[in-house]
């Protein structure tokens, strides 16, 4: 498509218009096919193009749909996400919790090491002997009947005392059958040594011999120590870790039941003490164990015990995540977050940046969840470690599409309806999105054929994730975006109204036809601040720190991070037993856990809170800590609840055995066993232990026994005060933490509030400006809350030209403009009066200018001639406009804009070609027909719109199409064939300069003319050169002309009058140039060629600037040359660019900056010729450059305006302009920048990057981009606006400056 561009002259001015046709077609899929506008229409659209069109049409419709019904679509999407994620409920939670497997005790044999195929249920870790067999002996003891003379300590002292005799019993038990004598010593797991770091536990845990753990260990298993211990509770507590609990404490280990179930407390309600004697056996001997069990039962019969004793549970412990795995994992997550951060940072120009970023992340994450859910639904169970591959999945799926969508939608014209914007944005990017997705799918499918199972699984997830991500982008994200944009528009409207109401009345200009204020429009800019630190250059240091804190919200962030960490610590150390709960839930839900549930039907839904398999579900819902005896004797329990200790105490504390006692170890932390073994340097990672059925023991002690075993100090404890403290101790930590947290939070809030009041002045909050984050349309306001006064600026339109303005020149007082028709007008910059008109003579004489006659017809008809031209699309575009019935901005349809803005150009070329085909063909080498696409493209690259603020060094395309000119660049001959016969005024003005009263005009046929600006008479002309003058510089009495063939001519203007009589005029103030001599009309002026540098450059000269006695030229040959003006001597050849030079800036202070096609900007020292700095700022050509004393401002083809620090070369910030109008800019003062936009000019505060004001030049801002912008000395600017000139005074700025 790019090849078939018309050889359209005006396309020069629209750097982006190469892309435009595509945009047009994509954006309006229902319009006529684009064949009509092509010069050589292709016979048929290819399949690819048709596909593309179809896709974009579909996207367009989809965008309309999404934006029209946002709420139903979001609901639908959420529903589908939830539906797809539903299968995830069945997955076990990822984690390192233990896995269980249950076998029957009766026919238990130690599993062999070899895997056996037939045992389907058997997990693959169930191989070989376990690390150890655990034989718990669960003891429940109570003093009965309870006597009112007993003190609280009696509840547990004597029951605990019985542990020593039990231990004795167990240790001494010997089983003797025919095969031999076995004792515990032979079977138990012999441990050798505690880890060296556990000296603290040395006295408590067994150090040598059998690993036999019981509460007796607190007293070294010696009864005497126990009896002489004055305070048992203190002994127990002194080994507890201080502060928050870790999950497996020594108390848990020794008692073998959770703390609150032990009953070892002064406030125990039930007066039943529960503890476990844990035997750790190294080898399994069924007969010994059964004899032990029988013996213990015989000694301490448990009457109502109905525990099942036929299952043993094997618990497999997964690998603990260690340092070695954690570090890479954390790194990948950090990279992932950095990726997300950098991606979402690019979201711009929306109402809520964070909201959209969140939506983007939600899109990606829920697409991943959907992918896993769908895969699970279809039977693929994930085997990969989810946490490990998750970042890679996110990275593979990526956030790019979302960003592209946002950017595309945001860059649609803002005055369109929201749904049309969404639709256009979607359809603009449809092709690339589809292409990207197809590519990614292909890559992933290739990955699927690697036949590595893990990679295949990854690819499967990624494919499903990609597809669901696409779905979510299309439905969820698009809709969210539409809502966001709608909100933004509402907010803009709301904000704009009071702002305008509060504005002071504009000063009535004397001669200015006052325009009605244009309707409020959001300004077409975004500004990105590079380093916020540069924004507060003016602030004192102290305030800077404070504002920095405020801006970056450091305090809030610290608090947030702190809270998150705190919550994390809480969850980790789980004072409320959350971890246990989760682990239990995991084991419940895992298929292996079902076996452990003892044949109960698997319950998938809600897992019990304290799951005893088969336990009463009513228990699990109670808020109280689960009572030890759930159901059997409810009446006793209720007595225990209600009776005060003095009166209604149950006389016989009932010891009952519930189902939850079968596997009491389940209530322990899942770290219980690993931490016990780890004390002896035995790891359970990837290994398993077997837990044998519990041996229940019931002990009933008589009150007399309890009293006998009392320690003298026991009676000092006060009796339990009342019931109100019943279960406080257990949950005290939680309450404490909660109270502390609340207090801390309140304190912080108060503190922050005080800080806010102290640090921020009163009007800080009243300006309504969110500091550090400015949105479009915000009132400008610096960090003090100071808003510069704003007054209405109304542009003054200078009408008179019949065609588009071509060249602009000014010396401060006068302004000369030349239009495409060749007419030169001179204006007074103060009043805006047109002083002189220098018409173009003989307009209708020659064949080459015959187009002007045609042009009139054009204006009348208003549409392009369809035949032979690319004008066909224009009617199409027009039709579309009418069809749609909404205002179509020209920016998205630049193609018609090209035709309508400058309809004159097309027939020009046409007539040229038609009327003089032979000469044309002579000049250009035989090319096939009119295919100028490549040439135009080249001209694009070579030619930039002229820099603002300085002379229009651009050749007018009037006399010949730029392709033709460019073609002839290689030749010495001038291209204009009509110059041979026609009078000299036939040739176009390519360059113009104005000094004093003299207008220097360089023509395409090489003539240099000097006109009197006031009288409009030709004073002098020089015909020494033949090659067209492409650029002029007029300094003092010298004129430098750069010609098409690369030569540079120096002229001297001589006046036959003593110099002393010269009058000077013009304000001496801010002007960069010295005041020019004013030539009066009676002087005879001659212009002589003093020196001609024939081969100044190897390639055409693109830029010519003169200041401070130097002439600087930039050329296509990548070099910049500096000449001295007086003797036209070449001082330096500056090399350093890797592309043609496109922009040069030099001023009185000898600052030289150059920008090239490579996007680089170089600063040079003109005195030494050395390069001061070199920065890359733009993607594409640098189109214009201006320097102030502190910074360099550049604009590029990428519509970006960058502001650089001049001394360091660091980019301060950049302003993103609308597409296609980033070319013109000017600096009014040190701190005021003006840029041209789409029918408007914008004023910026240079120091801060604040948009001060946007001035709309006309009522209908249709696509008239400001291409040239000249800053006059009296703080006015002149810019071209189609065929008119616009003079804008900046009174507010003046006041502020002075």
């Amino acid at each position, binding site marked *: 498509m790019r090849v078939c561009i018309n050889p359209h002259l005006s396309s020069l001015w629209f750097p982006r218009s190469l892309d435009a046709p595509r945009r047009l077609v994509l954006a309006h899929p229902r319009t006529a096919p684009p064949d009509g506008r092509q010069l050589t229409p292709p016979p048929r659209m290819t399949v690819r193009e048709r596909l593309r069109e179809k896709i974009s049409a579909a996207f367009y419709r989809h965008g309309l749909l999404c934006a029209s019904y946002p709420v139903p679509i979001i609901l639908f999407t959420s529903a589908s996400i939830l539906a797809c994620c539903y299968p995830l409920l069945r997955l076990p939670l990822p984690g390192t919790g233990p896995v269980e497997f249950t076998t029957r005790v009766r026919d238990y044999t130690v599993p062999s090491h070899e895997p056996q195929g037939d045992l389907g249920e058997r997990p693959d870790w169930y191989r070989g002997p376990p690390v150890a067999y655990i034989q718990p002996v669960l003891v429940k003891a109570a003093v009965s009947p309870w006597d009112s003379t007993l003190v609280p300590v009696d509840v547990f002292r004597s029951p605990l005392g019985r542990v020593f005799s039990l231990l004795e019993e167990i240790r001494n038990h010997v089983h003797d059958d025919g095969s031999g004598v076995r004792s515990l010593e032979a079977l138990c797991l012999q441990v050798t040594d505690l880890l060296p770091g556990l000296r603290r536990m040395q006295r408590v845990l067994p150090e040598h011999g059998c690993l036999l753990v019981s509460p007796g260990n607190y007293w070294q298993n010696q009864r005497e120590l126990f009896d002489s211990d004055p305070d048992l509770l203190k002994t127990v507590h002194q080994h507890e870790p201080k502060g928050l609990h870790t999950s497996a404490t020594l108390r848990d280990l020794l008692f073998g039941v959770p703390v609150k179930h032990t009953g070892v407390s002064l406030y125990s309600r039930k007066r039943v003490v529960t503890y476990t004697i844990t035997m750790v056996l190294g080898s399994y001997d069924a007969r010994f164990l059964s004899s032990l069990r029988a013996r213990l039962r015989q000694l301490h019969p448990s009457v109502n015990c109905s525990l099942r004793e036929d299952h043993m549970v094997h618990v497999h412990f997964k690998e603990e995540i260690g*340092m070695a795995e954690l570090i890479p994992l954390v790194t*990948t997550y950090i*990279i992932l977050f950095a990726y997300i*951060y*950098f991606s979402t940072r690019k979201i711009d120009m929306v109402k809520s940046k964070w909201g959209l970023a969140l939506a983007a992340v939600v899109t990606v994450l829920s697409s991943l969840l959907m992918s896993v859910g769908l895969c699970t639904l279809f039977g693929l169970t994930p085997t990969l470690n989810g946490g490990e591959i998750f970042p890679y999945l996110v990275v593979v799926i990526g956030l790019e599409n979302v960003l592209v969508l946002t950017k595309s939608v945001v860059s649609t014209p803002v005055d369109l309806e929201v749904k049309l914007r969404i639709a256009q944005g979607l359809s603009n990017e449809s092709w690339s999105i589809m292409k990207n997705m197809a590519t990614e799918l292909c890559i992933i499918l290739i990955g699927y054929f690697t*036949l590595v199972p*893990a990679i295949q699984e990854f690819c499967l997830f990624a494919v499903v994730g990609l597809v669901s991500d696409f779905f979510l982008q299309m439905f969820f994200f698009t809709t969210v975006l539409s809502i966001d944009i709608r909100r933004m528009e509402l907010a803009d409207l709301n904000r704009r109204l009071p702002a305008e109401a509060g504005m002071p009345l504009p000063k009535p200009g004397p001669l200015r036809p006052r325009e009605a204020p244009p309707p409020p429009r959001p300004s077409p800019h975004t500004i990105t601040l590079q380093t916020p630190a540069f924004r507060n250059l003016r602030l004192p240091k102290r305030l800077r720190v404070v504002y920095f804190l405020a801006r970056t919200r450091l305090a809030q962030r610290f608090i947030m991070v702190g809270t998150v960490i705190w919550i994390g610590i809480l969850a980790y150390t789980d004072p409320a037993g959350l971890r246990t709960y989760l682990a239990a839930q995991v084991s419940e839900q895992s298929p292996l856990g079902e076996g452990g549930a003892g044949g109960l039907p698997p319950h998938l839904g809600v897992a019990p809170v304290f799951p005893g398999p088969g336990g009463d579900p009513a228990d699990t819902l109670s808020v109280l800590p689960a009572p030890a005896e759930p159901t059997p004797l409810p009446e006793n329990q209720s007595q225990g609840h209600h009776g005060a200790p003095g009166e209604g105490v149950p006389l016989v504390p009932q010891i009952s055995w519930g189902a939850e006692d079968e596997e009491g170890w389940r209530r322990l932390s899942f770290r219980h066993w690993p931490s016990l073994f780890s004390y002896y340097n035995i790891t359970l990672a990837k290994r398993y232990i077997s837990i044998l059925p519990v041996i229940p023991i019931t002990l009933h002690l008589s009150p007399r026994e309890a009293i006998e075993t009392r320690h003298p100090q026991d009676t000092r404890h006060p009796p339990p005060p009342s019931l109100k403290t019943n279960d406080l101790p257990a949950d005290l930590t939680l309450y404490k933490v909660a109270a502390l947290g609340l207090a801390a939070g309140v304190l912080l809030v108060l503190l922050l509030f005080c800080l806010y009041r102290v640090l921020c002045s009163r009007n800080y909050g009243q300006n309504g400006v969110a500091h550090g984050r400015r949105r479009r349309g915000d009132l400008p306001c610096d960090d003090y809350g100071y808003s510069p006064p704003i007054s209405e600026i109304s542009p003054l339109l200078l009408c008179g030209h019949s065609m588009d303005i071509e060249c602009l020149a000014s010396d401060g007082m006068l302004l000369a403009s030349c239009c495409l028709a060749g007419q030169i007008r001179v204006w007074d910059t103060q009043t805006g009066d047109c002083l002189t008109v220098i018409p173009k003579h003989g307009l209708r004489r020659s064949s080459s200018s015959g187009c002007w006659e045609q042009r009139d017809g054009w204006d009348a008809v208003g549409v392009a001639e369809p035949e032979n031209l690319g004008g066909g699309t224009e009617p199409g575009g027009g039709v579309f406009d009418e069809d749609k019935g909404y205002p179509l901005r020209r920016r998205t349809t630049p193609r018609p804009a090209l035709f309508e803005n400058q309809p004159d150009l097309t027939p020009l070329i046409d007539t040229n070609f038609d009327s003089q085909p032979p000469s044309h063909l002579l000049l250009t080498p035989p090319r096939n027909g009119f295919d100028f696409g490549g040439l135009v493209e080249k001209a694009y690259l070579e030619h930039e719109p002229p820099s603002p603020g300085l002379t229009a060094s651009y050749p007018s395309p009037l006399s010949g199409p730029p392709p033709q000119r460019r073609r002839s660049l290689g030749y010495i001959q001038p291209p204009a064939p009509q110059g041979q016969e026609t009078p000299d005024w036939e040739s176009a003005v390519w360059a113009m300069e104005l000094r004093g009263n003299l207008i220097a005009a360089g023509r395409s046929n090489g003539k240099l003319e000097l006109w009197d600006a006031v009288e409009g008479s030709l004073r002098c002309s020089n015909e020494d050169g033949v090659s067209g003058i492409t650029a002029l510089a007029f300094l003092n009495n010298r004129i430098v002309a750069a010609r098409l063939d690369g030569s540079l001519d120096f002229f001297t203007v001589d006046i036959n009058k003593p110099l002393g009589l010269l009058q000077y005029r013009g304000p001496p103030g801010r002007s960069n140039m010295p005041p020019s001599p004013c030539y009066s009309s009676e002087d005879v002026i001659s212009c002589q060629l003093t020196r001609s540098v024939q081969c100044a450059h190897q390639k055409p000269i693109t830029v010519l600037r003169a200041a401070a006695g130097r002439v600087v030229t930039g050329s296509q040959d990548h070099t910049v040359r500096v000449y001295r003006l007086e003797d036209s001597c070449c001082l330096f050849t500056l090399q350093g660019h890797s592309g043609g030079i496109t922009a040069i800036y030099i001023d009185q202070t000898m600052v030289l900056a150059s920008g090239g096609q490579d996007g680089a900007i170089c600063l040079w020292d003109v005195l030494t010729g050395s390069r001061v700095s070199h920065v*890359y700022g733009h993607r594409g050509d640098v189109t214009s450059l201006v320097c102030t004393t502190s910074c360099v401002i550049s604009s590029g083809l990428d519509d970006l305006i960058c502001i650089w620090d001049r001394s360091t070369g660091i980019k301060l910030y950049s302003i993103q302009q609308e597409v296609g109008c980033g070319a013109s800019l000017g600096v009014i003062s040190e701190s005021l920048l003006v840029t041209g936009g789409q029918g408007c000019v914008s004023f910026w505060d240079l120091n801060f990057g604040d948009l001060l004001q946007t001035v709309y030049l006309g009522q209908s801002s249709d696509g008239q981009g400001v291409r040239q912008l000249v800053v006059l000395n009296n703080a006015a600017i002149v810019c071209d606006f189609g065929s008119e000139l616009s003079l804008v005074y900046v009174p507010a700025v003046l006041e502020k400056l002075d």
Partner: protein
Amino acid sequence: MPRLEEHCWSRSCASRVESKTFSGGNWVASRAEEMMSIVTTVLSNAYGSLHSVRAAHLIRRGLVLFTVGVVLALVLNLLQLQRNVTLFPEEVMATLFSSAWWIPPCCGTAAAVVGLLYPCIDSHLGEPHKFKREWASVMRCIAVFVGINHASAKLHFANNAQLSLTLAALSLGLWWMFDRSRSGFGLGIGTAFLATVITQLLVYNGVYQYTYPDFLYVRSWLPCIFFSGGVTVGNIGRQLAMGGVEKLHND
């Protein structure tokens, strides 16, 4: 691995210079002289412009790249440790700073060299790299690189051919996704080749060890890792050279 690779890189640069000087009689002398003059001018330039902005910028870039290299070396080494490819004693942290202490610095140095080399070569070739020049893309690239390492460390492949083919495809995919420049490809290949050769030399001379000193095994995956590492570091270097004041946030 990357530490090896870095080592090789730094070494390779040195060897390149040597090879140039040692290839002819008279020519050597002139060449050496030329070299010396170049070196001295470079040094004096560097010294003189130490205070200038560009030099500071360069040093900053180098430092960032060095950090990145060191961090990547440590992290990826831990990944390889899990596969028991490199021979280290049990204690991980002790290992990282005792037996192979020289590896992360080498790694960082080489990362700095390669990361500075890429933009340098780009500017010499006159084709500035413009493909996907943004930090998000760079982050993606790093993530994919770590992922490739992860895959090579964690996945179980049927045989070495499968491993190396998969990794080669992944590395090529990385290059195509994030680089797509000929210079990047060439430099990546060069670093991969030199790095592998030097690693092999190191292994054969006993400086460095694998648990499986199997030439085939090592050869199968090492070049791919080196290649993708080169491309990744080059990507970072280019972005740093372009980004100017922006700093790398993740490290």
